């Protein structure tokens, strides 16, 4: 096993990047977004593939579609909400189809590990009548993406491959292959196919419907589903499970005595196979995360079988072994075979599940005491790093008592105590429009509302909103938190960094130049580590009866460690123990053993906190 060089432990994202390589992809694009980011980062290791960070998902899909029209295979990766941004080209791409194979990866985030919602993107496939494949481990991620390119070219359609966080970020064994060299097809101008004026669009819509019928035949074929029939003595025959993606893995582990039908293609859904599978069953359980996507389809088939799905499983969050074990207990009145044998489900679990807890009073008392301990634990949410240049901006805004219309990025963390900033966070770029809406709705917000947006998100979708704000005579303050990187997803380049994903130098754009072009007169650039100036600038710009644009520029501490002049310490003789320094929210400032102190390991020496203490107890080391 260990000697086989082609057998590797890969994340789903690494496997997808490998599939792009093996499929002969020429162009790959993305905008970074958890849990999809590592796909393009890994693609960039293959020198045969041109790859790029685009400014947003819409453009990334458009670039990939251009590559497809030119005859080459193209891959585009995004997180689930990214497909909202790319929905405009996506919906019509279904009409135009492709020349070179075009595969779109949608990495969904059930449980919202790092997202603002947990929308179920399987509905996009149904919406656009585009085929969709759902891998259940890294090997399938590789195999299915390769197959998606074949489907794309054969059926003249973009193909959606949907992963979830547990597929993208779990590692399992993958057998890799070699690269298939795909020479781009010759370009033939085809206006009827690619120019979507109404007359041509009507023709293409018919082509979509025709393609849909062919895809419905395709999904019934053997490769697109997998039937597991257990052979053990405990195996049941009158119950069946239909599932897909990571839920399949949970089903196989818990329901080891139940036949399982796994769908590899979940759009279209293989109605005949499902009817056949259900024929001799009393009960069919549909196991899927989030929406009842498969369940609704199967209900419409009107099968003569009892169907259970969302009545057993929640329509939110992730599933897991324990969620399935509860259902197993309900069905079979005992823990699942394997779990019971292994003691994996302790006595406690079964008691809880069958609600016989009252008869175990001694046990209950101990359990309650333990619950009390666990409920009292201090949480450990993610925080802005020690030395983060964003912190002082929110500290000042808090003092100025403005409404802060936010955006997606590290700075979203400023909503948590002690900074308690942000009045909203909707999607990338939203704050700039929302700030304008606030002041138009209520004059009291004049001079009391700001929009904060990152540098990467400004390029993503802040520019159009800035133009809108300027055009409609906004008088708020747009603040760009320019830390020179896409920090939250792990320091990716963007148009402001002057470098591309393939490490080439490029033009380096500045947000303030866009503000100037939008006709904004009041443009300021400040270093947020100078908190006095920062406060003065914010006050001046808030008091203006015109739109202002303030760029707070200082590199992310993770890309550029400050040249440490001196770390700080708290002089215990001066400290009045007022606790004001803790309100700054820097993880390096601690209250430990009944005194305030600076953790010298965490402190980056930014010295910004020295200005916080009224009594000058925070002292710079010489």
């Amino acid at each position: 096993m260990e000697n086989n060089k082609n057998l590797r432990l890969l994340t789903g994202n690494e496997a997808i990047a490998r599939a792009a390589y093996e499929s002969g992809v020429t162009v790959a694009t993305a905008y970074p977004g958890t849990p999809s980011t590592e796909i393009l980062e890994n693609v960039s290791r293959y020198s045969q593939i041109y790859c790029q960070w685009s400014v947003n998902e819409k453009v990334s899909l458009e670039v990939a579609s251009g590559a497809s029209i030119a005859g080459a295979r193209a891959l585009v990766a995004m997180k689930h909400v990214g497909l909202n941004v790319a929905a405009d080209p996506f919906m019509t791409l279904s009409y135009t189809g492709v020349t070179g194979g075009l595969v779109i990866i949608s990495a969904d985030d059930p449980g919202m590990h790092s997202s603002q919602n947990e929308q179920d993107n399987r509905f996009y496939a149904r919406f656009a009548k585009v085929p969709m494949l759902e891998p259940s481990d890294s090997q399938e991620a590789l195999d299915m993406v390769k197959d998606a390119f074949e489907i794309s070219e054969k059926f003249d359609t973009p193909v959606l491959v949907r992963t979830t966080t547990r597929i993208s970020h779990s590692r399992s064994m993958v057998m890799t292959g070699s690269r298939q060299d795909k020479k781009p097809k010759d370009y033939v101008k085809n206006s009827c196919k690619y120019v979507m004026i109404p007359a041509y669009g009507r023709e293409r819509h018919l082509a979509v419907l025709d393609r849909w019928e062919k895809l419905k035949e395709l999904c019934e074929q053997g490769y697109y589903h997998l039937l597991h029939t257990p052979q053990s003595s405990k195996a049941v025959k009158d119950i069946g499970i239909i599932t897909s993606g990571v839920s399949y893995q949970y089903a196989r582990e818990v329901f080891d005595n139940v036949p399982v039908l796994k769908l590899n293609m979940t759009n279209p859904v293989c109605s005949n196979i499902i009817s056949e599978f259900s024929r001799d069953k009393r009960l069919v359980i549909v196991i899927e995360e989030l929406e009842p996507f498969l369940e609704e389809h199967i209900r419409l088939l009107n099968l003569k079988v009892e169907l259970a799905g969302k009545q057993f499983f929640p329509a939110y969050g992730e599933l897991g072994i324990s969620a399935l074990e509860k259902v197993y207990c309900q069905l079979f009145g005992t823990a699942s075979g394997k779990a019971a044998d292994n003691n994996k489900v302790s006595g406690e679990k079964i008691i809880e599940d069958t609600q016989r807890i009252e008869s175990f009073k001694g046990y209950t008392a101990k359990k309650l005491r333990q619950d009390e301990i666990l409920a009292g634990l201090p949480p450990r949410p993610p925080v802005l790093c020690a030395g983060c240049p964003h912190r002082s901006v929110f500290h000042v805004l808090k003092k100025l008592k403005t409404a802060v219309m936010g955006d997606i990025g590290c700075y979203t963390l400023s909503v948590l105590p002690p900074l308690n900033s942000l009045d909203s966070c909707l999607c990338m770029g939203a704050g700039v429009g929302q700030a304008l809406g606030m002041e138009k709705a209520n004059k009291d917000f004049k001079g009391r509302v700001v929009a904060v947006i990152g540098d990467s998100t400004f390029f993503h979708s802040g520019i159009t909103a800035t133009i809108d704000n300027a055009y409609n005579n906004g008088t708020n303050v747009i603040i760009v938190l320019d830390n020179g990187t896409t920090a939250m997803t792990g320091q990716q380049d963007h148009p402001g960094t002057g470098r591309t994903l393939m490490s080439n130098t490029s033009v380096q754009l500045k947000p303030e130049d866009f503000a100037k072009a939008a006709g904004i007169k009041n443009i300021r650039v400040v270093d947020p580590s100078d908190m006095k100036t920062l406060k003065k600038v914010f006050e001046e710009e808030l008091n203006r009866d015109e739109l202002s644009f303030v760029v707070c520029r200082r590199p992310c501490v993770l890309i550029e460690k400050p040249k440490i002049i001196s770390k700080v310490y708290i002089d215990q003789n001066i400290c009045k123990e007022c606790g004001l320094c803790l309100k700054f929210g820097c993880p390096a400032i601690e209250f430990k053993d009944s005194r305030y102190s600076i953790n010298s390991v965490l402190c980056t020496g930014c010295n910004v906190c020295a200005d916080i203490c009224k009594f000058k107890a925070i002292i710079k080391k010489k």
Partner: protein
Amino acid sequence: MVKNDNNNNNYKKNVTIIAQKGADYARKWEISLKNGEILSVLFTGVGGQGIILATTVLAHAAINAGFDVKVSEVHGMAQRGGSVEGSVRIGKKVYSPTINKADFIVALEQLEALRYIQKLAFEGFILVNEYKIYPASASVKESNYPSDVAEMICSFTKNYYFIKTVETAKKLGNLKVSNMIMTGALSEFLPFSSRCWIEALKDNVPEKAVNVNIDAFNTGRGFAKN
């Protein structure tokens, strides 16, 4: 805060006795893995403590021993000093990448040991790095770090082992190797040969850091033996 119950001995007295259990666990799991059972190990700690490397080394040690593995971890938000977990599942054939109950928990920080302790299986074993990292929320005084965190851990299970890695790591000249000291201690509880582990280390640690990580691993292995 809730006090520890009186039946629980001071956890420090137990350390030596419990450490001898390592070999028993390894023998038990050698048979269980052969019988097709799945072994689940949960690593917990704080972003930046090296959990991903620890899961990677364990996974490759298991692969080197001829097993199927699945590893699960969470990226993104969790990297900003938040609570972090990673899990490794090992067996002849592994399905779910995520765990329900952990047969072993390796906690790189005490509060994070307590936070995940209900994940410990009925007869599971927890290895705890005797080290505290104060969360920002504890700094804000809204909810203080429990002073008797170690005793709280002991009120949940009798199967624990506390290791002071920081002093050892300092001696080795690299504070970051606490994760490998803990992994070394874990290795005594698992039925994989020394060769499987060392190969896994060599293949997954950056070349210049291989020696210090092997030293850390061996030191941890030694702790669990004594």
